[in-house]
């Protein structure tokens, strides 16, 4: 039993390590910060920006040369005490809103933001309509069986 538990925990652990490797956790360059707060900001920011070259990964998980350049640039900007908003502006002025994983709400993207709610309302209406239209037939059945 003890063997089994050891085996199981090792398996779980190795899965965790593999997945960590796969999302790019294993190939991190070193960006030294003297302020831990800044390091936390850096690590969270590079998760939120998309790599313009390999468009389905973020900067943190990308090894494309341009992703490295952008990470270095973000590193410099944080060291210069720039705010998150200033860094976002720096990037969108060059690479557009595309670089943001969370797109801003504007005339191009409103459908992304409100679309699901509209769809949900439609579904509610549809389900409501189904329920209402089914009721009489149900009661008929009920009466018939009686």
């Amino acid at each position, binding site marked *: 039993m003890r063997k089994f538990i050891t085996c199981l925990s090792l398996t779980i652990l190795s899965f965790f390590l593999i997945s960590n490797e796969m999302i790019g956790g294993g190939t991190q360059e070193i960006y030294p910060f003297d302020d831990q707060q800044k390091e936390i900001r850096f690590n969270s920011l590079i998760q939120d920006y998309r790599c313009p*070259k390999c468009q389905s990964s973020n900067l943190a998980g990308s090894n494309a*040369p341009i992703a490295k350049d952008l990470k270095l640039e973000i590193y410099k900007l944080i060291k210069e005490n720039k705010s998150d908003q200033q860094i976002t502006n720096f990037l969108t002025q060059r*690479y*557009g809103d595309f670089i943001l994983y969370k797109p801003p709400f504007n005339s191009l993207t409103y459908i992304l933001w409100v679309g699901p709610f509209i769809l949900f309302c439609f579904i509610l209406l549809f389900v409501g309509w189904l329920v209402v239209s089914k009721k009489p037939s149900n009661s008929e059945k009920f009466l018939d069986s009686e």
Partner: protein
Amino acid sequence: MRRLIHATPLIIFGLLVLVLFSSLDNKNDQLESVLIDKNFPNFSLTKLENEDHTITRKDLSNFPALVNVWATWCITCRVEHPFLMSLKEKSVINIYGLNYKDSRVKAVELLKRDGNPFVYSIFDKKGSLAMDLGVYGAPETFLIDSAGLIKVRHVGALTPDVWEKKFIKYLK
């Protein structure tokens, strides 16, 4: 009516399959540039051919002109090279090179060997001007119109076909 309602999920599914299937083939790696209709960004870098010669935006003139981002390590740049040469030979348009994250010696050597389609090249070792342009890989080609505004950005090899479709309308 009832039948139609029952068929709705199937119809929606069918539409979804169509949409997704058609977008499988849609290989759009062309990011829209935010610099369209904006001025070419300012810069201060050296000339590829002469490291003592600093150039800035003011040194780009004779518009309309192309700015072509290239490098010796970039394979697709070799593909478009003959077309750039033909543009130069026919004096269609001025082409400025932006040598991107490259070695000066290698770049000069390559131009000597294969021909130089550029008026001159800007040497951007660190890729700073390229970053201001939103470049994310070489080759990229920008068209600056006669008013000095960026009108087109093309990512990938500049071929006669692309030239016809995207660029030529700004030259008339």
